[in-house]
């Protein structure tokens, strides 16, 4: 750990060489993280890429095979219990009690975090209002919709006003409308000073984060802010429109300079390695005079570029 007095940024999570092995299988491989306080950080990656395992390692639910983790300025090892009062965790699967009502669930979690009497009552009322659950207060959690369950889970995870909040694929069972709403709440929490680490496999969600790490097979392939990642992408994006795009895709993907070609509506979105100096000319030649234009890179382009064995170059 470097203890530099002039260091300005305070980190909520610092990890170096974080590794988790299950037998011969490496679930998380030498993960380095520096997540500044007060930011929303995303883990973007497909299922099984090590997102959930990383979160479990950082919350102290799993023990790391190797590596050091510092949470909120304290080494995780040996401080797991005292840190539990300062962090919140929302699991991927709904982990509250289906046969308790919304209010009973909140009451239970409140008591677990040491809230009692008036303090507990007013905090629960506050959360019911904030997460729009007042009408459901007496409803069994098991009978609620996906969005309502999600709000209840967030209310429970933030009941004790944690400084650091972990969310493991929080919106995978929620419709787009509720997803928007949910992210509004996250920015509210962030504005109030909470650091949030969220894992997702949705590009649009990842794009909302201040910074993110793209993960694949337990490795971090790239990290930075969405804009920085797009700017630093080692590929150029060209959109081709015209007919017989399926056949064109077949010929294009044969070329070693072309990283990927994917059809999006009436266009073919082609990623060409940066070392090709005239990408438009290069593509025009290959696509028999179909219309070609340069396009703005998206986060999905970044994701495609640095995963699936294309990250090496």
């Amino acid at each position, binding site marked *: 750990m470097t203890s530099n007095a002039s260091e300005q940024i305070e980190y909520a999570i610092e990890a170096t060489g974080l590794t988790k092995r*299950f037998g011969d299988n490496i679930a998380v491989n030498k993960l380095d993280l520096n997540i500044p306080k007060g930011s929303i950080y995303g883990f973007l990656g497909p299922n099984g890429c090590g997102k959930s395992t990383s979160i*479990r390692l950082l*919350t*102290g*639910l*799993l*023990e790391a095979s190797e590596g050091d983790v510092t949470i909120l300025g304290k080494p995780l090892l040996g401080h*797991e*219990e005292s840190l*539990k*009062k300062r*962090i*919140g*965790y929302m*699991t991927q*699967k*709904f*982990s*509250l*009690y*289906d*046969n*308790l009502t919304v209010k*009973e669930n909140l*009451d*239970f*979690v409140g*008591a*677990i*975090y*040491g809230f*009692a009497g008036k303090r507990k009552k007013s905090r629960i009322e506050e959360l019911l209002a904030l997460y729009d659950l007042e009408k459901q207060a007496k409803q069994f959690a098991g009978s609620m919709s996906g969005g309502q369950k999600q709000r209840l889970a967030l209310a*429970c*995870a933030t009941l004790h006003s944690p400084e650091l909040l972990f969310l493991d694929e929080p919106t995978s069972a929620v419709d787009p409308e509720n997803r928007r709403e949910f992210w509004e709440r996250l920015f509210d929490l962030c504005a109030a000073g909470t650091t949030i680490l969220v894992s997702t496999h949705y590009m649009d969600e990842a794009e909302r984060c201040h910074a993110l790490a793209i993960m694949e097979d337990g490795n971090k392939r790239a990290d930075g802010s969405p804009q920085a990642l797009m700017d630093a992408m080692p590929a150029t994006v060209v959109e081709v429109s015209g007919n017989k795009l399926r056949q064109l895709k077949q010929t294009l993907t044969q070329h070693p300079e072309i990283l990927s070609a994917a059809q999006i509506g009436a266009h073919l979105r082609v990623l060409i390695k940066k070392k090709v100096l005239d990408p438009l000319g290069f593509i025009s030649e290959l696509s028999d005079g179909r219309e070609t234009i340069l396009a703005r890179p998206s986060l999905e382009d970044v994701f495609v570029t640095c995963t699936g064995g294309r990250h090496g170059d």
Partner: protein
Amino acid sequence: MGISMWIRVYAIFVKELKQLSRDKMTFGMIIMIPLVQLMLFGYAINTDARHIPVGLVDLSQTSESRAVEHALVATQSVDFIARYRSIKDAEVAITKGEIRAVLYLPADMTRRLFNHPLYDHKQIDSPLTLPIGQWIVDGSDTVIASTIRALRNMPLDEVANHTTIRTAPSFEVVQYFNPEQRTVVNIVPGLVAVILTMTMILFTSSAIVREHEHGNMEFLITTPVRPMELMIGKIAPYVLVGLSQVAIILSVGHWVFSVPIKGSLLSLLGGSILFIFASLTLGLVLSTIAKTQLQAMQMTIFILLPSILLSGFMFPYDAMPVAAQWIAEALPVTHFMRMIRAIALRDASLLLLGKDALWLGLFTIGGIIIASLRFKKKLG
């Protein structure tokens, strides 16, 4: 620190009680298991065999042979349900399982009867004394066989129509505590032990596993809850469950089957609480080993069978070989079986049963230590 710990324990206790009361099936079973089993076993289990179906091969065909038959029926031990021409036919019937035994009365039965000292006391020391008939028994069931064996020296007063000789028995036997020798008197207190073993171990062994299976544990272990708090909070409601089952069994046993409850309620309560704690901690230890509720169930059955067969509930503890007695001693139920029968039937005090009480206490402490050590606040 201390107060927030009890707040957490209380929160878990309340949560568990609410969930239990909403699980109608489980809640019903808590009451129905003791009631149904008590009714079933109270009426059904009887180690004192009566009205055994038997056959008769009567080659004598005299009024005396009919008198012998009537005298046997009058004992209520056997019912003659069939007659056979020969021993061969009767043996086939035994093999088929139609009858459990056959009485063979030879053609010269009347002469044998007149020469028998139980019929005519002047015949004592007569060299002509022979048995008047022969029982052939399906000896594989020892209870049936011993019932028939008891007929060996049956008095022949009724056949003789006059009082025959009476010799004084070698020993006088006075039966304390259950003079009428009703099996149910011994069964009901034993049933308390067996049913508590079953419900207490099953409920707790699945209680922690259930939190894992439903995904609640992943959230719980990121909270400040300590393993000990979780365990105390989760098992406390089942102490109440256990005590209500004790109350149900003993009161129904008392009113329906007139089983006496001679000991003090305080001793009964103390003994029951000790046993409930021991069973609950055993369930907790199992819950730290089991990964699914099905596994927890299998382990409960693994404990339950020896608890029924070796604890002295069905077969006398003293009749078992030493090695089996050691296994029985390791099970909490054996100690409680002794205690509850002593308290309920013989008015023993808890103090008099100090050794068993102490053992249950030590078992509980040891169990809690093992369960806490095994229960890690980690996944995987």
